[in-house]
């Protein structure tokens, strides 16, 4: 297959569908590079080119790998060496992401296989066994590829939650409390002009510290039991809050069902800390976000759990002004469960884009309606 009719557009469309941040510009970039003589020497080179141009993270890399293998024909001959004979049987290929093929662009994975048949002899017997081996190899490879598909399809639909990583990060960014702190580096023009006016002469400019985000977040995550299906989701919440946002600090504590006397520092509930001690240590500026289904996942109604939750919330409210409850279950499932009662004490939102945005504005102290679903 020559360069002109490579399924590049197909690859591009597939990657776009898999949520890689690609635009028409990126496609043109590829064409432009190909015209410039990049990535045309062989299949591995083309893949390297696509990787450099389109891939921005390890996850993207895996997606590219998968779709490239799916879409690109095994044999690519560029116009440069179009006289190379079309190999009849595929050579058992080295995995494309092996370091050796990356390091060595001249590695010819597309060269025709050595004609071992002639070399080993011409007897019919040998040829037949050779053929059988080939068939077995092909079957083996085909089934291997199938395995890979099932795994990779799972990976490619990584963002199946109601809120994607990117949206979470965007939401977290709104949680901010800018405070001037740190070394004085910014010129306070107004104050400097005032100084000059007072003294009739500029002696020293007035500097102030730069504004930084001091919004601190305390995440309380319900772990285990009915929350097991949401562990991935809670991990993602933590990850985006700590890495993607511009939060001053995000502390994470875990509990099971309802925090009573202790909170745990790790998801496995190994390291514990008394709530009183924790409260004594933390600053009052923190916004508190509780991530729990509050019994809505199993639909139970427990008077005891309601009372425990109320006690815990009352204890926290003495110290923190903003406490918000984020529920992974949709709002329509809260009524008649413990969650329906808990939402009387604390603003509760479900984990949708809108719910998360509401959560953030509630954490910033903005007014939000407590009623989430129609009565």
């Amino acid at each position, binding site marked *: 297959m020559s360069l002109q009719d490579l399924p590049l557009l197909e690859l591009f469309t597939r990657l776009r569908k898999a949520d890689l941040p690609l635009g028409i510009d990126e496609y043109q970039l590829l064409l432009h590079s190909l015209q410039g003589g990049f990535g045309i020497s062989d299949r591995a080179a083309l893949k390297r080119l696509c990787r450099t141009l389109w891939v921005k993270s390890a996850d993207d890399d895996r997606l590219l790998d998968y779709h490239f293998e799916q879409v690109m024909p095994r044999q690519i001959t560029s116009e440069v060496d179009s006289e190379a004979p079309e190999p009849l049987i595929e050579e058992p290929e080295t995995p494309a992401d092996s370091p050796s093929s990356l390091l060595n662009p001249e590695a010819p994975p597309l060269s025709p296989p050595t004609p071992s048949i002639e070399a080993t002899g011409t007897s019919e017997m040998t040829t037949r066994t050779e053929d059988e081996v080939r068939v077995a190899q092909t079957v083996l490879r085909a089934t291997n590829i199938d395995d890979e598909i099932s795994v990779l399809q799972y990976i490619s639909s990584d963002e199946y939650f109601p809120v994607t990583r990117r949206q979470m990060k965007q939401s977290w960014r709104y949680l901010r409390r800018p405070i001037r702190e*740190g070394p004085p580096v910014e010129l306070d023009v107004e104050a*400097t002009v005032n100084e000059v006016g007072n003294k009739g002469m500029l002696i020293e400019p007035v500097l102030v510290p730069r504004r930084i985000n001091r919004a601190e977040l305390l995440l309380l995550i319900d772990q285990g039991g009915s929350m097991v299906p949401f562990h991935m989701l809670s991990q993602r919440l933590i990850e985006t809050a700590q*890495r993607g946002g511009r939060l001053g600090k995000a502390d994470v504590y875990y509990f099971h069902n309802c925090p009573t006397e202790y909170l745990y520092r790790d998801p496995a509930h190994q390291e514990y800390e008394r709530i009183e001690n924790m409260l004594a240590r933390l600053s009052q500026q923190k916004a508190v976000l509780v991530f729990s289904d509050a019994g809505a996942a199993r639909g139970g109604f427990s008077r005891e759990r309601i009372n425990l939750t109320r006690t815990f919330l009352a204890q926290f409210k003495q110290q923190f002004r903003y406490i918000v409850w984020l529920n992974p279950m949709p709002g329509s499932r809260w009524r008649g469960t413990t969650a329906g009662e808990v939402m009387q004490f604390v603003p509760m939102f479900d984990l949708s884009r809108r719910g998360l945005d509401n959560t953030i504005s509630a954490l910033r102290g903005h007014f939000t309606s407590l009623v989430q679903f129609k009565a």
Partner: protein
Amino acid sequence: MDEVLTNTLFKYTGTVQPKPGEHDDNGQLLYPYQPDDALVEAVNLSIYLERPLLIKGEPGCGKTRLARAVAKELGLPYEAWHVKSTSRARDGLYTYDTVGRLRDVQLTAAGRLKDEYISRIDNPASYVQWGPLGEAFRNEQRTVVLIDEIDKADIDFPNDLLLELDERRFVIEEVGLRMEIQAKQPPIVFITSNDEKDLPDAFLRRCLFHYIKFPERERLIEIVQLHFRDASEALVSKVVDRFRELRKKMLEDKGEAGKKVSTSELIDLFQILSRDSGDEALANVDRKLPASVLLKSWDDHIRYLGLIDAKV
């Protein structure tokens, strides 16, 4: 036509190395640099497409050194911008010495400024100090610009650079001055990141990306030999093997995320070992390796001290 000419002119090969002890214009010692082929290709692609190349990789794998090596081989001017946590995007373009100007005006009013300085006040442009990217834009030659550790800055920092990197122009808007700077030649931009913060998608979209992998054994040996040309082959391969052993163990324990010994530490290690000559150095490799070069946290100290101790 011009563009085509400049594009074809610059092709990085990664094979031209500085002579031992050679210094650059600022008196900085130049080091040899041994990129792998995929990296060379990515560099050439970035030169050709005039897009910034974002480089990631574990600490000590040579992200920062690349830009200088490219500048050296292509014989182009080099500008480095080491980003700090307080850096603003504008600092890389220019800073305006407002306070200096105010001071000059004050001194003139007080009659204490010489005439040649007074003419300076009339020209607002004389208070502009160019940043690395600003210098590169003004240079008649294509300039290699390094934006080092971009993830250290504020999260908005990369986004503030979008227009400058995209259209290669910026505007100076200060008192009585509106100056537009358009790049004379597209700079060759390298950006390094230690992955401490995620970069915004809009910024990523405009960059080419390359991850520097940890070198294989043969390449490690090549790298050491490039740095220490008169080292014996036996010594080099012995040190590299012990080093790889330690790294392998660290990789097993810590996985991909933890701090592991890297290329730069290998070079430090070799420097120490090669103080002794010949057989003595060779014997030293079997004895205790210098822990202070290899183990950089107390945890590492406890766990791996046995591994670098004398082999019995």
